[in-house]
């Protein structure tokens, strides 16, 4: 570090104090120096003692509840403030990773527009703050008045919490709560029931497969756990070991990373699966019992190659090639999900795709598909209460005897998900929203109860069994709750008490603890029969002493997780008894083709969840709004992806404002022309255009859900159909400066160019 080394310019050229008076050139300047501002800063004596040193980092275990995946995280706190979220390296789902949405939980926690006190819509029509007790009284009264007409909606991914709501509904005599969850979650269960005879979400062992056909699964975008499946994908494709083929109409992030992309016509995924099945059966690579198992499901003959190619709109050669590679592969695996499931024929389609695994003998095999065994803890809190209802039940109930019935929405935003329900909402009576934000539903509510966000609350989560391993994750709060926000579970219990039908627990944590101790009792009693689905898998609780110690230990240890050995094939197939075996499945081919608005050239619109905003939950975080979409590189707002050929024909250029007209409504948004969009289809991200949801989301972008018709359902799984929407596309105008899309990669006109100089790396030595 000596003076001479100016080579890379360390500022070594310095002068001692001695020389100070020698040079007088800059007297005046130095005077400026003399009167530098000294800001009067304050330093605080905190009111309470704390063990941590001032300004020292304290890392706290927690669970990310931004989605249902159950990523285990560590939160860095300094002086009782949360600073940074990092993945827990030992996290059983995320193994140290965190996704963009997960990081942004901090901005949800510290959002300037949080709801921090209970509010009621006063005479003025404005929401006015009221004390908790009063709020609870009001709600309880409204429920008690006509419990049978009360409607509960819970959007929390946490199983136990849903269980508690079920218990609550039963206690107050209301109908079971509606579990507000993504369409594909519902459809997958239905499809799994058809294909495997067990209605659990299938778990995929992606990492250990060697040839994966993903039918519409955007598992690198969002879906069930981008972090888990991202890691699995990396393992699959490491050193070109395995291969991923994406069969999806839209060029999703997953398709972008896939080794091969088959852009089938939207809605034809099921047909595609049948076609492939036909080729496999014909190839003779299929064993006898596989063939039998498959034909039990699909007695009639699959469509031939030509028909498939025609219906799916892709080159027959590619389908053949794919089938051949599947037949050749050692550990083939077929995944299904995402946009493939969102159409009206979603169940049939995904069942057909799942059934392929039977044909490939991939069920219950390493590198194959497993039954998503969950921890069964939801039922422990629910007790005898009936199971939760699927999302679509909401519109049925509202459409039905909605009048004057109280509607309690907990941590869900149905009005953003299905704007068509607006009218039905008006029909409903008192609308009560448990929410941390004024989202579309909350701002429409008559009563708003502030709830805590992930990091403020005691968490008990049954994660989505993404790899078939049961788990229960428990964590204590990381930071003190903001304002008067309460735990939704505590609110439920308080409501029950106020409604005169108190549940046996004072709070959610106590509920979880006691339920756990019951669980031990049960399993100790019935250690031998693990088949009892309600029972805790025995290995999980070995050595646990009592509930309190258990909770203490697990909250430190982040939870309770099974082992890979606990994966199991769907019970029905495992037991193999015939009457359990599912009956014939409606052939996707037999379902009607999607309807189009009359008399115009129509496009198939594919609503998709962008990696950053997800279903819209992320829209209120500046980090995510300013995050460029990985493919279109658009920040701050919505866009519609168009194929170059279509755009040329319609005279549309990137940035032009276009109008999409559907049967229900029309929306205007900027177009992004990409070389990767399937001609005849357009892609629009969901999650934009919130009526409210904090300053960063309000009126930002467009809510594509407005184009969805609330009466369209996925057949056989009470979920709203999102896919197969036909829209008309027309160019409106060149954008005004203020409505131009914010495109990050502004050199995208040179998109094909990859100007990267090649040079052997020299280890960066200077």
């Amino acid at each position: 570090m000596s003076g001479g080394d100016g080579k890379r310019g360390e500022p070594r050229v310095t002068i001692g104090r001695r020389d100070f008076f020698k040079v007088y050139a800059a007297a005046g300047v130095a005077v400026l120096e003399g009167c530098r501002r000294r800001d009067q800063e304050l330093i605080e004596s905190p009111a309470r003692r704390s063990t941590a040193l001032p300004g020292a980092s304290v890392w706290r275990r927690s669970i990310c509840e931004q989605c249902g995946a159950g990523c285990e995280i560590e939160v860095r706190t300094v002086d009782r403030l949360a600073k940074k979220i990092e993945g827990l390296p030992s996290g059983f789902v995320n193994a140290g990773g965190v996704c963009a949405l997960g990081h942004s939980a901090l901005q949800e926690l510290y959002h300037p527009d949080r709801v921090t006190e209970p509010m009621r819509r006063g005479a003025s029509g404005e929401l006015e703050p009221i004390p908790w007790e009063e709020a609870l009284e009001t709600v309880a009264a409204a429920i008690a008045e006509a419990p049978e007409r009360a409607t509960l909606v819970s959007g929390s991914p946490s199983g136990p919490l849903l269980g508690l709501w079920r218990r609550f509904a039963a206690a107050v005599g209301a109908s079971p709560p509606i579990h507000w969850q993504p369409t594909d979650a519902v459809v997958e269960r239905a499809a799994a029931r058809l294909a495997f005879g067990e209605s659990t979400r299938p778990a995929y062992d992606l990492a250990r497969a060697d040839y994966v056909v993903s039918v519409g699964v955007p598992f690198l975008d969002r879906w069930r756990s981008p972090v888990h499946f991202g890691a699995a994908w990396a393992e699959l494709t490491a050193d070109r070991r395995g291969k991923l083929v994406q069969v999806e109409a839209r060029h999703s992030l997953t398709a972008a990373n896939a080794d091969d992309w088959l852009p089938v016509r939207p809605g034809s995924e099921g047909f595609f699966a049948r076609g492939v099945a036909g080729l496999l059966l014909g190839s003779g690579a299929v064993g006898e019992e596989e063939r039998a198992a498959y034909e039990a499901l699909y007695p009639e003959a699959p469509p031939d190659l030509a028909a498939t190619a025609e219906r799916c709109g892709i080159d027959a050669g590619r389908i053949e090639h794919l089938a051949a590679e599947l037949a050749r592969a050692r550990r083939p695996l077929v995944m299904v999900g995402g946009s493939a499931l969102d159409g009206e024929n979603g169940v049939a389609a995904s069942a057909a795709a799942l059934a392929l695994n039977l044909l490939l003998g991939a069920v219950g095999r390493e590198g194959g598909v497993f039954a998503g065994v969950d921890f069964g803890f939801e039922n422990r809190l629910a007790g005898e209460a009936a199971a939760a209802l699927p999302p679509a039940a909401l519109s049925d109930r509202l459409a039905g005897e909605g009048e004057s019935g109280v509607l309690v929405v907990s941590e869900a935003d149905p009005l953003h998900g299905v704007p068509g329900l607006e009218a039905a909402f008006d029909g409903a009576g008192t609308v009560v929203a448990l929410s941390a934000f004024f989202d579309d539903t909350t701002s429409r509510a008559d009563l708003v109860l502030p709830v805590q966000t992930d990091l403020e609350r005691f968490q008990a989560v049954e994660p989505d069994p993404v790899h078939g391993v049961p788990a229960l994750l428990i964590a204590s709060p990381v930071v003190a709750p903001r304002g008067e926000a309460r735990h939704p579970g505590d609110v439920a219990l308080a409501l029950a008490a106020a409604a005169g039908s108190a549940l046996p627990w004072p709070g959610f944590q106590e509920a979880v603890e006691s339920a756990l101790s019951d669980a031990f009792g049960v399993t100790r009693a019935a250690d031998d029969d693990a088949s009892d689905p309600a029972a805790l898998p025995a290995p999980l609780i070995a050595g646990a002493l009592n509930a309190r110690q258990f909770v203490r230990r697990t909250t430190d240890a982040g939870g309770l997780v099974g082992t890979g050995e606990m994966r199991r094939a769907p019970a029905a197939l495992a037991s193999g008894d015939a009457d359990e075996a599912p009956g014939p499945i409606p052939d996707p081919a037999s379902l009607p083709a999607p309807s189009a608005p009359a008399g115009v050239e129509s496009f198939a619109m594919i609503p998709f969840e962008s990696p950053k905003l997800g279903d819209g939950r992320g829209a209120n975080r500046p980090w995510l709004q300013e995050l460029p979409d990985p493919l279109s590189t658009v920040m701050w707002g919505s866009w519609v992806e168009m194929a170059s050929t279509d755009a040329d024909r319609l005279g549309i250029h990137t940035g032009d404002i276009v109008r999409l007209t559907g049967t229900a409504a029309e929306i205007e948004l900027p177009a992004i022309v990409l070389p990767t969009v399937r001609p005849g289809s357009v892609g629009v991200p969901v999650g934009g255009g919130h009526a409210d949801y904090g300053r960063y989301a309000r009126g930002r972008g467009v809510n594509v859900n407005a184009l969805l018709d609330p009466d369209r359902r996925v057949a056989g799984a009470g979920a709203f159909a999102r896919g197969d929407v036909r829209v008309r596309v027309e160019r409106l105008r060149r954008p005004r400066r203020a409505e131009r899309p914010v495109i990050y990669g502004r050199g995208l006109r040179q998109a094909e160019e990859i100007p990267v100089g090649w040079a052997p790396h020299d280890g960066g030595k200077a």
Partner: protein
Amino acid sequence: MTSEAQRPARELDGELLGRLDRRRPGLFVGSLASGALVLVFLYCWGYQIANGIGVTGINRPVFWGFYIINFVFWIGISHAGTLISAILRVTKAEWRRPVTRSAEAITLFALAIGGLFPLIHLGRVTIFYYMIPYPNSRMLWPNFRSPLVWDIAAITTYIIGSALYLFLPLIPDAAVMRDRAAAGLKKRFYAVLALGWRGTAQQWHSLEWGIRILAVAIIPVAVSVHTIVSWDFAMTQTPGWKSTIFGPYFVVGAIFSGIAVLMIAMALLRRGLALERFLTDRVFNNLGLLFVTMSLVWGYFTFAEHLTVWYSGDLFEKNVHHVLLHGDFAVPFWTMVVVNLVIPVAVLSFPRGRRPLPTALVGCGVLVGMWLERFLIVVPALSTPRLAYSIGDYMPSWVELGIMVGAVGVFACLYFTFTQLLPIVSVWEMREGWRHAGSGEAGGAESDDAPTAVATAPAPGGGAA
């Protein structure tokens, strides 16, 4: 003519100064207008300092914009005076006499403004002094490897040099003004400027030696200044900037624009002060020839620069080259070529084109063209970075435009003030000129007739005594 040669010096002075003193409405209006523009300038700059540099249109990747463009442009203008008048003095061109003073004034003021732009351009102008090498409590020097620090050195030198160069020949005239002014503040002011000039032989002697030494010394300085300015660009690795030709290219461009300004200034002076006898058509003719030569040289450099880039086939260089010649910047580029090369050659090649009016008009065109040239050097290179993903664009904000226009006002304001306070035409040199014209010797050795000048011009101070 000869009659005039006999008239006493004081009358000549009187006549000339009279012409200078004559209050012209145009001048008044001009001062008002420029004053207004000065306010615009100050407002915009203040607004920018208050709200942050973000009020400009610059962005990533176009980190430099109008401010740097104008910086280079004004420094270029500054070559109108000192350099050219120095050359003229050294070559003893007779017709320089009425021109030099105004030219040197232009230099000084243009430099002052040009030197201001880098400061306006700074993100944190409040600590601009970090760039100045002075002993400080942080015990840090600036980075002498940075072309910007070289700039500071070069421009400061040039300003001081030009100021002296403007001031020396001013001394005798200041003395004249002192003697004409009634006692009071004004007299004191001129007295200070005159530094006790009495017009003795020794004073004349040392004055002329001073001027001569400066005239020779200032030429390399002037050349170096614009070379160093060019190095702000040429020393980087940015495609479109890193080029060995930039040094001479910038100097030529500077002189080119300098002459353009000079042309305009001369045309104005000639009309305004009725100096047809000095600024004859022959002068314009010669200067016109010099002008068209510079135009051709500039054209040659431009051609050479783009040819080498195109020929090299360097990918990134060619990207920049592409947007220039047929891309987003094609229009300004070809406009520049027309006004800088085509028109001057077309007009100035013919004797009729080298008359005051056409030359002045061509000069205006060249000023625009040279501004465009600087624009085309700064923006396209930046908006076309190596990684195509980051390609950007640039649109100046009203603040930048305001400051740009305001700067012109500041210049005009300074210039008008100067003309109000001091003779914009060097009186004693004119007087000398008249004498030469009278005695028929075209620009004889000045050391010889300096005494004559003194002899025939009895020190007015003496008269007062």
